[in-house]
């Protein structure tokens, strides 16, 4: 039964894609619908699978020999991923309704875009599912790669200049990331001749070069998870991508990086080498830097989705910090893990809801604005950890840290929460500024509401081990609550300030620009060098050719000797006879 579900979970999306192709060939453009019921159902088997209980599969025939499993970690992960994907699908149906109409009226560009999206969306999904349930390297890498490269279509969908820029940034970083991941995995797997992920963990933990492998893997996966420095694609890609795509991108796929870390890094293992601990500290710092830096930079953004992207970065920064604890302070990890999962799940859905919300604010349904803005605010509140699911998820993390007495980290995280609340309030404010009426499709707001509710009640439905999600005691509420007003106040103050002293908003994708500048100059240098070498080679070739022609000419002249020999043949014969005789006599004499 579960096996059947598994097959469906992986295969169904592909079938859906195939179905899409088939129907694209059969039905004429005028009557073609891209987001059919089948299409919506792509993620449902995966969702069911998540609740089908734990299971193990092993197949030797599959690539290097595969092992897939549903366990305490992968089940909840699969659950929230699949849920988000299905909501996003429904949302997409609404979101793209107008575009589809345009396509049916013969806008070939729209038709092309929609077809592309409708095909690659399920493919991306299946990759995402595969990497969650995979326990062997090949499958994990396969899933990761499929997801990464198929998602390109999601990012580039609009085809505007921004979209192309975002997509390029995404792809370049993705390729870099893939390279680093491959290197790390190869290295680790070669060290302990294993094709399983725990083999990688073991290698990283035990090998002398463990820290190098760990660094490679951390950075490689960090591209997805938006580690500071490698995060630049997020704020470029999100504003350009359509809302549902952004939802899954920063809800589900970002988390893939996080999951990767949890899979390949020896988190929480006793007696790690000091180097690894050191790496943990570095990760910690990087994470916190991301958490704060993103907040500080993000609040100035104009585009609400850019703001949300920065908030994702900062959230992932927090998660990075927590993962870092797994290396820096291994003993805390077992307690921390459920919290991390819950946090991730909640962030996924909340962020998803927020991103969908942006599309709601752009085409507001005909309800009273108060309600809409209340609803839009809910996931934001929850994200700051001051409310419902967010509250509990935050607490589940903090409690673990409390038990191991990492107060400094806690306070830092709390301060980071201030940043978060600032960001979300900014984004709400920007949405308010850029709101526009014009009713939205039921699918659109329906999915949004559903995601919203799911986000608020995350702990209830997420299949976590018992007692990992508890309501915080009342005395802690203040410490969890206060960042929200603080953030709001900061923003209000900021607004007041900016109202008078106008200051320019920094461009989205902060570090991308220096990177691009650098890259261009390096490329220019390379190209110049290449031209230089080409010229050099050409000159050598010319010289060689000149020599050859001269040689050929001399050879041709040489053949004139033939005539000489012809005229002196008999003389030569005499000479030969004499020479032979002399030689023989001389040899005989000596």
């Amino acid at each position, binding site marked *: 039964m579960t096996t059947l579900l598994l097959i469906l979970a992986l295969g169904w999306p592909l079938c859906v894609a195939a179905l899409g192709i088939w129907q694209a060939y059969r039905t004429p453009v005028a009557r073609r619908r891209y987001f059919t019921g089948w299409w919506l159902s792509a993620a449902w088997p995966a969702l069911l699978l998540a609740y089908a209980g734990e299971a193990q599969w092993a197949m030797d025939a599959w690539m290097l020999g595969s092992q897939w499993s549903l366990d305490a970690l992968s089940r909840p992960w699969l659950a929230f991923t699949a849920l988000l994907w299905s909501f996003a699908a429904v949302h997409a149906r609404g979101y793209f309704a107008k575009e589809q109409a345009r396509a049916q009226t013969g806008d070939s560009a729209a038709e092309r875009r929609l077809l592309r999206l409708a095909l690659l969306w399920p493919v991306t999904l299946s990759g995402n599912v595969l990497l969650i349930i995979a326990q062997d390297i090949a499958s994990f890498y396969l899933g990761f790669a499929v997801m990464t490269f198929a998602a390109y279509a999601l990012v580039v969908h609009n085809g505007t200049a921004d979209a192309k820029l975002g997509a390029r940034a995404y792809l370049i970083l993705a390729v870099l990331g893939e390279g680093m991941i491959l290197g790390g995995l190869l290295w680790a797997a070669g060290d302990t001749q294993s094709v399983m992920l725990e083999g990688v963990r073991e290698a990283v933990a035990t090998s002398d070069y463990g820290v190098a492998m760990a660094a490679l893997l951390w950075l490689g996966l960090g591209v997805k998870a938006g580690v500071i420095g490698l995060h630049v694609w997020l704020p470029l890609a999100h504003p350009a991508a359509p809302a549902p795509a952004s939802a899954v991108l920063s809800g589900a796929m970002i988390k893939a990086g996080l999951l990767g870390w949890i899979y390949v890094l020896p988190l929480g293992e006793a007696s790690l080498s000091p180097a690894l601990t050191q790496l943990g500290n570095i990760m910690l710092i990087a994470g916190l830097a991301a958490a704060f830096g993103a907040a500080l930079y993000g609040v100035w953004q104009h585009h609400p989705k850019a703001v949300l992207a920065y908030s994702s970065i900062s959230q992932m920064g927090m998660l990075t910090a927590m993962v870092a604890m797994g290396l820096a302070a291994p003993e805390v990890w077992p307690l921390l893990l459920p919290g991390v999962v819950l946090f991730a799940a909640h962030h996924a859905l909340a962020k998803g809801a927020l991103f969908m919300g942006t599309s709601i604010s752009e085409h507001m349904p005909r309800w009273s604005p108060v309600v809409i803005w209340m609803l839009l605010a809910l996931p934001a509140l929850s994200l700051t950890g001051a409310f419902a699911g967010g509250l509990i998820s935050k607490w589940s993390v903090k409690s673990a840290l409390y038990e191991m007495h990492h107060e400094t980290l806690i306070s830092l995280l709390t301060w980071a929460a201030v940043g978060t609340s600032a960001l979300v309030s900014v984004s709400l404010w920007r949405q308010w500024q850029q709101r526009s009426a014009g009713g939205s499709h039921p699918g659109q707001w329906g999915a949004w509401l559903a995601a919203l509710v799911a986000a608020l009640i995350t702990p209830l439905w997420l299949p976590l081990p018992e007692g990992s999600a508890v309501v915080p005691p009342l005395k802690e509420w203040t410490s969890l609550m206060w960042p929200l007003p603080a953030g709001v106040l900061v923003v209000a103050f900021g607004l007041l300030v900016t109202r008078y002293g106008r200051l320019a908003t920094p461009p989205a994708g902060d570090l991308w620009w220096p990177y691009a500048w650098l890259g261009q100059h390096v490329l220019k240098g390379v190209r110049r060098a290449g031209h230089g070498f080409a010229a050099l080679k050409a000159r050598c070739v010319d010289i060689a050719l000149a020599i050859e022609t001269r040689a050929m000419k001399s050879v041709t002249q040489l053949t004139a000797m033939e005539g000489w020999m012809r005229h002196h043949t008999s003389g030569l014969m005499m000479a030969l006879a004499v020479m032979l005789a002399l*030689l023989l006599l001389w040899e005989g004499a000596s």
Partner: protein
Amino acid sequence: MNWRFGLTGSTFDPLMTSHWALAAALLLPLVFGALAAIFPPRRMWPVALACAVILTAGIFLLIDTRQAGVLRWQWEFSGIGVALRLNGVSMLLLLLTQWLGAAAALYTPGLLRISDPERFARWLWPLMGAVISALSLAWVATDLLTLYIALETMGLAAVAMLLLSGQADALLAGMRYLLLTLVGSLAYLLGVALILGYWGRLDLAGLAEVVEPGPVAWVAAALMGAGLALKAALFPLHAWLSPVHSSAWTPVSALHAGLVVKASLFVLLELWSILLFETFWAPRVIAWMGMLAVVWGGLIAWRAESLKTLVASSTVAQLGYLMVVFPLLLGPDISPLARALAWDGFWLQLMGHALAKAAMFMAAGNLILATGEKTLEGLAGTSRRLPLSLLVFGVASVTLMGLPPSAGFTAKWLLLQSMVISGQWWAVAALLVGTLLTAAYIFRFFRYSFMETAPRHRYQPLAPGMDVIALGLALAAFALGLLAHFPLDLLHGGSA
């Protein structure tokens, strides 16, 4: 060395059949040639019949030789001794001659039919017969008199054949060739005179016993060497060769380049192996000239503008390969293994080259006949219209290049191995360079032939069988590479 030539060793009086077979092999070509002069054959089948008889004679001899190892004949009329023998080497060469001659003869009717009638065409037959008989005699003769007769008959008949086409440049070249070959044989005769004067005998077997190194042997060897080198077109004395072929008839060129020059080389080797065995310098000199020949012939062929010149010049280079082997065969302190390898390689190369060169001349003749063009440029683009002739040319050229799987390759392999063993690196270099040069001029022609942009001239259809015969020869040269075991077996079996 002498046992290799079957001069010493077991005496075994031949069977009756082999007497007749020998007589047939030596005389029938003449007879049939004469007949053909009287009734020139228009079709292929009478020629085929005649050839069949001669070839069967050859087969009989082969069987006997395989049984006996060495066959000898001795006659004495009024103080003039005639001695013949058949051992592995001479048997192989005899067979080669017969088959090659048969191929040339079979090729001829077609040629005469489609080419415009010549005045002297009918004389081709007796001359061809004479050449074949003389060659057969040259292989089996073991006394200087018979050898002289064979050489002279061969030379004169060959010259006459080459003159037949009757064009001016053919006459010029032929005249030069005539004078040179006559003088060359006089030099040989001078050597014979010295030998006869000093030792008073002409049979090689006897000489092999009495000869001891000394001025007479040396000077005689020098004179004979020079004369025969002239007849065999060895390197510095080769220049008469290519003009001779440039306007000769195809089967004539095939026979001449394939066999006639080889006969003088064979005699040269045979005599030197008696007169100056294990001398250092003379074979070395020949070898050096051989290296030069490889390079020179290659260069000439590379720059050649007409196809026939190319083919003819390549003969010079290929003879160079054979010259390079001299030190290994005659030189002192060569290990037995090296000497055996060199011996095998020498004859394999000779046979392979004979077959391939004949095939190549026929293919070239076909191309020239069909297109009416002599120059390489003129022959551009033939691959589309005359694929078969070109294929023959290609297969033959593989042997010349010494690329596998061909006699040329196996021979080159054996020679290289023997040179490496006896540490003659210059010779190795010569062989390798030779391969490249050969490839250079062969593919220069192919480059032209593959051109698609060439203008299309009218093609004259070839008579049936002309290509097939050539192909047969080329394939024989090809097969000799992988099946080299059998001829070499005969070579050893005959001389053991």
